[in-house]
């Protein structure tokens, strides 16, 4: 073990401590094995698998309609987007063109999901650095989105609203009105967020220059979503591989170049504004028509491989389906954004203080069921 002599009398020594699995700052059941020397971090090793359910193995025995339901148990804060990823993969494989109405509704719900996820992240981020108020603000605004989801989708968290071929039901008559009400409300709230945290000097001191990730490393580690974009790596799947109604809206990709925790924070705040802009462009123009196209009760994908990328609130989710032509997939792989984003934790926290680890983890915004699957 490495030792260093201080003042000839005291010796500092490296030692291990466990953070988690039941630690409030790990946002789920994640255990970190820390090697520290005093307050300085020497090594961070995540220990995963506490909520591994082997969703990929379960998929091999399920029909394609059933797989959709498993996906919102992965990243439960982006459940609608996860559902959509599987549906898009199946629809592309069947060469099924869904009605315009479905595409627009899916995109509106995607962006609502993103705002709701970022609201929760913002609240928890504040709590991780010691500001309890933000938690209640974030949850207050998220509640309005959950109410919209409950009315239209029938559930607040695990929505299961997408099915291969469209949507399970048509939208609730109140949907458009309530989304507009939420947008009006939320536009006055983001400046409030800024006043509470963004401009707060204590908050800035905790996050600026902490956990720096450069662009080359971001690409090499496969960082996507706000983590990648805060390092100047342009990686928005919505821009590069647009899906659903994203080809008809205009939005800016939130990019920052500092690569520190504060940049990751700013990217998410900016993404909330962009999501609002996307919803505003679509909400008045939901086309009439059916909410689904009929598919066979038993869906059999043609032999081959299908890959679909979508942008969840955390980054790039990939669904890789290998089919042999039967009613069950031969192999399903979910490329989760969380696993790649977590793998760079050791790289950006080594040499920093243990208190900064918590703030850095908050800005990476991990959801453990997404990593463990």
């Amino acid at each position: 073990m490495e030792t260093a002599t201080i003042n000839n009398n005291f010796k500092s020594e490296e030692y291990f401590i466990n953070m988690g699995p039941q630690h409030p700052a790990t946002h789920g059941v994640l255990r970190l094995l820390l090697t520290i020397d005093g307050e300085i971090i020497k090594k961070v090793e995540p220990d995963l698998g506490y909520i591994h359910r082997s969703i990929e193995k379960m998929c091999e025995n399920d029909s394609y309609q059933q797989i959709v339901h498993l996906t919102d148990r992965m990243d439960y804060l982006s459940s609608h987007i996860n559902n959509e990823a599987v549906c898009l993969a199946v629809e592309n494989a069947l060469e099924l063109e869904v009605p315009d109405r479905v595409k627009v509704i899916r995109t509106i719900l995607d962006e609502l999901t993103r705002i709701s996820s970022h609201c929760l992240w913002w609240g928890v981020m504040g709590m991780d650095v010691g500001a309890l108020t933000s938690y209640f603000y974030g949850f207050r605004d998220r509640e309005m989105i959950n109410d919209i989801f409950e009315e239209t989708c029938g559930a607040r968290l695990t929505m299961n609203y997408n099915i291969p071929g469209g949507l399970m039901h048509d939208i609730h008559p109140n949907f458009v009105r309530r989304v507009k009400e939420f947008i009006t409300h939320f536009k006055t709230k983001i400046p409030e967020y800024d006043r509470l945290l963004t401009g707060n000097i204590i908050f800035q001191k905790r996050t600026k220059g902490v956990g720096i990730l450069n662009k080359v490393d971001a690409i090499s580690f496969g960082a996507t979503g706000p983590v990648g974009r805060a390092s100047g790596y342009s990686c928005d799947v919505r821009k590069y591989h647009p899906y659903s109604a994203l080809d008809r809206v205009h939005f800016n990709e939130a990019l920052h170049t500092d690569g520190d925790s504060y940049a990751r924070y700013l990217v998410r705040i900016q993404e909330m504004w962009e999501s609002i802009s996307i919803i505003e462009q679509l909400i008045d123009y939901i086309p009439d028509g059916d909410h689904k196209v009929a598919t066979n009760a038993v869906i059999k994908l043609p032999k081959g491989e299908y890959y679909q990328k979508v942008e969840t609130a955390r980054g790039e989710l990939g669904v890789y389906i290998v089919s042999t032509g039967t009613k069950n997939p031969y192999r399903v792989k979910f490329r989760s954004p969380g696993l790649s984003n977590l793998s760079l934790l050791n790289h950006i926290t080594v040499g920093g203080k243990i208190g900064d680890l918590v703030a850095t983890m908050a800005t990476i915004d991990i959801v453990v069921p997404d990593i463990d699957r």
Partner: protein
Amino acid sequence: MTNQELQDLITGWFTDPAAVKLEFTEEGSQFLNLSIHPDYLHELMYYLKLNRNTSFDYLFCLTGIDWGKELEVVYHLESTDYRHIMVVRSKIEDRENPEIESVQDIWATANFHEREAFDLFGIRFKNHPNLKRLFLSEDFEGYPLRKDFVDEKNMVVK
């Protein structure tokens, strides 16, 4: 680069493409698929990332597939400069002791993804610095994503 240009360029790197089992196909996939013998994979991957024209700097998916007789490792690559995508695959015939060179020195993200493939398929990645199970406990027996894995207690087979 288009798929045809990629195919011509990469074939040109080898004096005898048949000797390393280099094959291209676009059948049954939306991307260009390249398959190669596992012994030559690492060298090819190295050039795929460093060559100025291919520049595959982003490994977005790494996984295994159990085809019964053999195990296959599949790498999805994308270039952030040109935004072209290619799939590299390699079949390992030895099921008892499947081994392939690790690519974690080329893409750092491969570290965790290779540990996942080792955990669930039992594929050993040579020169990996920390090849341990990622999700399952160290004393877990068998590799669950293999097709011949049986667990009568916890698995529901329909």
